[in-house]
């Protein structure tokens, strides 16, 4: 069953920056979708748009169907009900997302009290259970954020996201500031929770190798667009879009002689969303750009069964708006 269906989403900030420029995505219950991209590609804006968390004045068009219901046309009361209970977000940087002057237990209990109309005692019990579920002792409910390590704080954030049994969890760079070993612990926890509770996961990260390892499907974003989408492993190991290939190569596999003394990257920088290049937005950095790439904007094409890529080097034929079928 389709849990989340994003259709032709565009987000334009008040200053004119087109952060998301026509994105189609879908996610089934129990599925894990990874969104990879660099700063400014629109991946975090996408996450915020899903729950209408963008600042006032931002222009959002398209459709965001959560369980068949369009988030963009919901009344405010309904949006508030959907947040936490329908879909929740684990933000990056748990240090800044937790309130430093409140005990973590009270912060986890807040959505439970608001959304599930629990009694304070019931909410306390549930908070203790949630903490144990994410691998922290229940006694930590009375800790303040500064008393916890970065990994523990991220566990608290995850407990909070699970508090109201949402059907969809959006994780925006949940492990970015953490050490590799703590990152492995958190990723394993997320994977286990998604598997046992059958929730949908949308995980956003700059680290394509982590997403390829964790997710079922992977979408690579560049300049506000999805430029490649497909089964996660296949996208990482055999990308069809030159940007996805370059991003993949930026995470070397240890032991691979081809990357020894040969760090790979791209010249130039990711584009500014306020000044997206003409034609294919990737053409100024593209190693295989040909004549016409600077004028013709290529949409997603079927690169292989179940795989889409937006590049002129992918043979046309299966037309642009072919949407991925799960």
């Amino acid at each position, binding site marked *: 069953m389709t849990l989340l269906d994003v259709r032709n989403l565009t987000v334009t900030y008040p200053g004119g920056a087109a952060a998301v420029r026509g994105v189609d995505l879908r996610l089934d219950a129990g599925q894990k979708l990874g969104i990879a991209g660099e700063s400014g590609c629109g991946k975090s804006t996408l996450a915020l748009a899903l729950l209408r968390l963008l600042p006032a004045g931002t222009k959002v068009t398209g459709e965001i169907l959560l369980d068949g219901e369009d988030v963009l046309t919901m009344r405010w009361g309904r949006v508030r009900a959907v947040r936490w209970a329908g879909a929740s977000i684990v933000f990056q940087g748990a240090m800044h997302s937790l309130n430093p002057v409140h005990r973590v237990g009270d912060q986890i209990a807040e959505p439970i009290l608001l959304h599930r109309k629990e009694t304070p005692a019931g909410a306390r019990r549930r908070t203790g259970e949630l903490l144990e579920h994410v691998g922290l002792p229940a006694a930590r409910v009375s800790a303040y954020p500064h008393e916890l390590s970065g990994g523990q704080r991220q566990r608290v954030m995850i407990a909070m996201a699970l508090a109201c049994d949402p059907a969809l969890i959006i994780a925006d760079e949940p492990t970015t500031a953490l050490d*590799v070993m703590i990152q492995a612990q958190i990723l394993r926890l997320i994977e286990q929770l998604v598997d046992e509770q059958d929730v949908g996961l949308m995980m956003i990260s700059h680290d394509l190798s982590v997403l390829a390892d964790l997710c079922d499907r992977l979408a690579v974003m560049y300049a506000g667009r999805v430029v490649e989408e497909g089964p996660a492993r296949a996208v990482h190991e055999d990308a069809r879009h030159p940007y996805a290939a*370059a991003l993949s190569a930026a*995470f070397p*596999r*240890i032991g691979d002689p081809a990357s020894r003394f040969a760090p790979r990257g*791209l010249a130039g920088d*990711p584009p500014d969303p306020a000044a997206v290049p003409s034609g294919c937005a990737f053409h100024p950095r593209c190693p295989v750009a040909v004549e016409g790439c600077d004028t013709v904007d290529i949409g997603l094409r079927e690169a292989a069964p179940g795989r889409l890529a937006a590049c002129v080097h992918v043979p046309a034929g299966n037309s642009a708006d072919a949407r991925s079928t799960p």
Partner: protein
Amino acid sequence: MTTPPPLLSAQGLHVTFPGRHGGPPVRAVDGVELDIRPGEIVALVGESGCGKTTLARSLLGLVPPTAGRVSFAGQRLEYSSRALKAYRRRAQLVLQDPSGSLNPRHTVYDAVAEGLRIHGYAGDEREAVTQALSRAGLRPPERFLLRYPHELSGGQRQRVVIAGALVLEPELLVADEPVASLDASVRGEILALLLRLRDELGLAALVVTHDLGLAWNIADRVAVMYLGRIVETGDVEQVLTAPRHPYTQALLSVLPDAPGEPVVLAGEPPDPSRIPTGCRFQARCQVLAGGEAERAGVADRCRGEELEVLGGGGEEQVACHWARARVTT
């Protein structure tokens, strides 16, 4: 082939900070030997809190060691301000976050020329600045001279920081997480720049990082640090493809592309004010917990016998009772 004498050498280095609220002292660097030879790139890897940044700062004379010593080009480092100033002409630091290490109100020219001015450079300042910028890959340099940091991208800012380090023509760069704050596609270019500087100028580098992939990309040698000590060191190919220390094995096994079952260590590294007795890794060691150390007959030594400090030379070494028992039996 004879190995050249080390350019930079740490011998028995200890850095201890006083404990907070009368607590036990924090042994951030707890006995380290490390040599860096001319033109060599050494990666110092470890998790946050392992002491890698303190070690790097101490090698540059920014933190005086509590015990042990640092030598540069065969001479013991002195801590008078005059001696340190002379030293910093030859060994330069590149910091992690280029947005934080550049003054927002200085132009690129001022940022790069600052070192020259401090050291009273007698030659043509403009010439030196443009040359450093162009070596750091900002071409044509004239286009960048009058820009301010906010007008540059993250990658360009890091190149300015590197140009500022290069302008004094040092022999050694110490780079603390040089690409951690950059976008993935931009990192490769900065790493390629470090490699090119080594090839063209013979610049040696100590790269402090948590990223083992980075070590694989650019380093000749790697030193893995845990709780203030180097626990495994050797050639990158050797250490990263056939790790011997259980900690190195675990670090490598949790990388997304790693083959085999990941070994996820529970908990977090202990506080450096409470370093365990015996092997400092014993509390989290999967080999000891899994009973393999017991079978190898070294479990008692793991719990009770501290390992000696590894030598700083190039040879492959590991500070682990179990790994050593495996070789000898």
